[in-house]
């Protein structure tokens, strides 16, 4: 496998090796074809590129800086930990990158309504934000369990004019929110664009969402070269569906010297079965329109995932991650709830940055790999989101009286 071959995925039908593809009802095929065409035309249209760029700079606040986490690094074997500050984007996470792109595409397709699924609420907030900005009707599906865990984000979406629909079937988390969004889409596809929030789902979503997020890695690579005169030894990010990780990985994939590390949610531990580590602890299957690693039983029924982090609590993973794992270009590890919360607290107290609990999984991974590599190593972490939404969960976890 040469580097060029890795870079050229997916194929024309959205396959990353044996992963990806389109496993959807026939009723959605026309909409996916339409989206694919709109995306390909826009990708090479200078007008679209300029419009998106303008929003990235003047609305999101790009480029996001890289912060050297000096005090945090002391707990990571002396390796230098750098944070790509996607938490400083407008709306507080990397999710805005994708929804700006898809929002503009929605307009180009002449559609007036967007729907989205959300777990932690970050993608829901980002979608509601862009819908408000562009004057689109917005409905967000969110598992009832998650509306409780992430009440602040529910309020934000409502303030932004979106309708939040609590999903009360199945495990009442992200997977069920996606099911409901797909049901809505099948019924309303003529007027509605499904603004899928991660690099999963049927083609062209994994490729399109990746391309809207690759700016994270493109910027990082330039910032590394201009500030440090070298590339990092490791680029690490948390992986649920995997959008922030693909976003920061993509620019570095051709750089063979750069290790790519994805940190999956280990929940209570892989051995307990209560986790969301699909690559580390799952098996190949088809869920939500794509073939990837999924959590399933012997009969092909989806097993409910578990994580303290709503945004990583998902029983599948983007097909490109499955592919990168299979060909050995990226490595995936599992981080438990406890390890993530320890890293969460450590970043708060050493750097004055409250990260999202999702992101805390990447920080825990950084501590581990930092200790393995020791002094002199540079580890670049995608600080994918800020933790305001998690304050209540964290306070409860640490037994604080509010």
């Amino acid at each position, binding site marked *: 496998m040469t580097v060029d071959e890795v870079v050229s995925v997916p194929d024309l039908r959205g396959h990353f090796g044996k992963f990806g593809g*389109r*496993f959807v009802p*026939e009723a*959605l095929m*026309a909409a996916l074809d339409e989206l694919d065409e709109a995306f390909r035309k826009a990708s090479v249209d200078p007008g679209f590129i300029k419009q998106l760029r303008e929003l990235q700079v003047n609305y999101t606040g790009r480029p996001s800086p890289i912060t050297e986490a000096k005090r945090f690094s002391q707990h990571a074997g002396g390796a230098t930990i750098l944070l790509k500050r996607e938490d400083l984007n407008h709306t507080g996470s990397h999710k805005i990158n994708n929804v700006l792109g898809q929002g503009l595409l929605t307009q180009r397709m002449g559609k007036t309504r967007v729907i989205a699924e959300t777990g932690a609420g970050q993608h829901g907030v980002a979608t509601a934000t862009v819908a408000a900005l562009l004057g689109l009707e917005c409905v967000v599906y969110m598992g009832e369990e998650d509306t409780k865990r992430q009440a602040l984000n529910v309020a934000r979406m409502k303030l932004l004019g979106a309708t939040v629909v609590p999903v009360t079937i199945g495990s009442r988390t992200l997977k069920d929110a996606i099911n409901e969004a797909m049901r809505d889409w099948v*019924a309303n596809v003529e007027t509605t664009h499904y603004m899928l929030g991660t690099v999963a789902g049927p083609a062209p979503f994994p490729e399109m969402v990746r391309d809207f997020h690759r700016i994270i890695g493109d910027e990082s690579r330039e910032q590394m070269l201009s500030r440090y005169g070298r590339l990092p030894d490791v680029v690490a990010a948390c992986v649920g569906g995997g959008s922030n990780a693909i976003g920061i990985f993509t620019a570095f994939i051709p750089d063979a010297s750069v290790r790519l590390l994805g940190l999956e949610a280990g929940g209570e531990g892989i051995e307990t079965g209560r986790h969301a580590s699909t690559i580390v602890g799952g098996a190949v*299957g088809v869920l939500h329109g794509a073939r990837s690693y999924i959590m399933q039983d012997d*009969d*092909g*029924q989806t097993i409910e995932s578990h994580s303290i982090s709503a945004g990583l609590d998902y029983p599948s993973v983007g097909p490109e991650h499955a592919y990168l794992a299979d060909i050995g270009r990226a490595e995936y590890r599992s981080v438990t709830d406890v390890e993530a919360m320890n890293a969460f607290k450590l970043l708060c107290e050493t750097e004055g940055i409250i990260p999202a609990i999702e992101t805390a999984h990447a920080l825990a991974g950084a501590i581990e790999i930092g200790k393995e590599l020791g002094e002199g190593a540079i580890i670049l972490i995608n600080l994918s989101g800020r933790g305001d939404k998690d304050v209540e969960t964290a306070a409860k976890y640490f037994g604080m009286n509010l």
Partner: protein
Amino acid sequence: MSSLHDAFARAKSENRAALIAYLPAGYPSEDGAVECIAAMVEGGVDIVEIGFPYSDPVMDGPTIQDAVNISLEGGTKSATVINTVKRVSELGVPALVMSYWNPIERYGVDAFAADFHAAGGVGVITPDLTPEEAEDWITSTNSNDVDRVFLVALSSSDERIAKVANATTGFIYAGAVMGVTGARTSVSDAIEGLVAKVRRHSDLPVAVGLGVSTPEQAHEIAQYADGVIVGSAFVTAIKNDGPAGAKALAQALSQGLSR
């Protein structure tokens, strides 16, 4: 020619559409499902679609979602589905399975086709598998003499209809509404046009389903399609009145099938 072909031919010779009924395996229980299906067949159902219960049924509305949950909570496994196919085939009615793709892939594509055929099953409907992703499935169904039914939708282009028609055997499933399963007060006027388009690409029987629940709708569809597919309405009838409800609905729908 298969018993599926015979069932459509018999309906045609009687100048009516065939009645195709759906019920998830294991609903309301493994034995209960077979009992209800036997009652449907007594009431006039020509072809039976056995649903393979799945945890993430994105094409199904609340009625079938609930039935599937009850089935899964009752312990339905892949083996239950195959066993149900066997028992329904023994009733002398063509048995199909309708399954989302992952349970089949997990079972093993070739193993499923072989075991399904050995159980007496005639065909498999795969609502989230399109011909583009079906290479292995086409090989396995061909070598195990199993019909494979793909769907066309109101949104399908002529090009896609041709592709689906080309890959399908048994009959072509035309979705009557854009949306999930579940009773509707009316089906789209556009469905007649879709059936006509399909006929330009295929000589296979065309059956219409999604949202169809009443004898009046069945009658309307019977004027231009070869089969009428009813699912959620049977689930509701069984929920309310068990096998007697299933039989009564089958009888009522049968009255509507004449041309």
